């Protein structure tokens, strides 16, 4: 299966080289593409100097737009599978092979790398865990499917779902909403346990301040996605 790793990167000059090294060492069968989301630091320069495979977005689109650009690239270039992989070093490339195998073996359309099946490794902060449990509950309520890690950015999709995402992908906080959207349209989603690390450098894009808005926005978006998909 022709597979590609999509690495959205915004101001990850401290982490991007490590991330690419991890991929080259532990997931050599995968191609990769860095999506530089108009970083204001020297992420672009680092990509150029190291001759990394990258796309440079002319305007900042946010995580949703950047990842969607990656899916579009993967779709146009004929890939069979595309994995999302964080550029901040929190994800571990050695799980990518396992995720790809799971995709094929279980005949799933998406496989999510979940931190909460084995509950090992960096488990995120307490408040975030509460929020994630809430989303797991809400998604189970609406779709009768249990997704233990709906906010995980470590996800692999097959070409069918890749095409769907190319044309429909949320702009911000995209993971829970796109998961429900896929489930509502009848796609099959599986999960495998993975271990994630704590972010070493730079800042996360979701802070305490927009936490409340995040919860409301994603809850409503999930509801709308469920209703829309049902038709």
């Amino acid at each position, binding site marked *: 299966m022709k597979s590609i790793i999509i690495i959205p990167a915004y101001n990850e000059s401290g982490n991007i080289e490590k991330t690419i090294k991890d991929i080259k060492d532990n997931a050599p069968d995968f191609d990769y593409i860095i999506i530089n989301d108009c970083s204001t630091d020297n992420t672009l320069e680092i990509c150029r100097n190291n001759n990394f495979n990258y796309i440079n977005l*002319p*305007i900042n689109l946010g995580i949703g737009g950047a990842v969607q650009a990656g899916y579009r690239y993967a779709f146009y270039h004929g890939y069979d599978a595309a994995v999302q992989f964080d550029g901040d070093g929190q994800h571990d490339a050695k799980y990518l092979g396992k995720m790809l195998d799971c995709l094929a073996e279980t005949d799933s359309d998406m496989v999510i790398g979940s931190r909460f099946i084995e509950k090992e490794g960096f488990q995120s902060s307490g408040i975030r865990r509460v929020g994630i449990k809430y989303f797991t509950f809400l998604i189970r309520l609406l779709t009768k499917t249990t997704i233990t890690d709906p906010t995980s950015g470590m996800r692999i999709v097959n070409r069918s779902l890749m095409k769907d995402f190319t044309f429909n992908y949320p*702009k911000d906080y995209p993971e829970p909403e796109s998961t429900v959207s896929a489930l509502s349209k009848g796609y099959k989603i599986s999960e495998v346990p993975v271990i994630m690390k704590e972010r070493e450098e730079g800042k996360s894009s979701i802070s305490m301040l927009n936490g409340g808005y995040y919860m409301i*926005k994603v809850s409503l*978006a999930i509801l*709308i996605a469920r*209703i*829309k998909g049902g038709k």
Partner: protein
Amino acid sequence: MSLKLQILIITCMLLAIVVIFRKIGKNKLDFKLGLLWVVISIVVMIFAIWPGLLSRISQFLGIYDPVNMLFFFGIILLVMIIFALSSEISKLKEQVKRLSQEIAILRKDTYDDINKNQK
């Protein structure tokens, strides 16, 4: 406020909320902006269900006529929304400009590349 008027307003607002959510679902309306309009509809509905609230608030603020207060705050709200939209439009114009420049340069580079290969 007559009962007829109350029912009319509440029905209109409910309809508005349904329309707004459908548009958001079809990706024809931005979520943030849509949510704003939904909140406004809900507020209007609250005032329609409980007209006494209007009188109470205007008394508290020292405005003699509740209708004046309604117009006053309504206008302020509309001005704030228009201002927010102006900001959005300005941002969009900047983005369009940037994209146009990028495409123009991309075209030239591609053109130069093609010609170089043909020589």
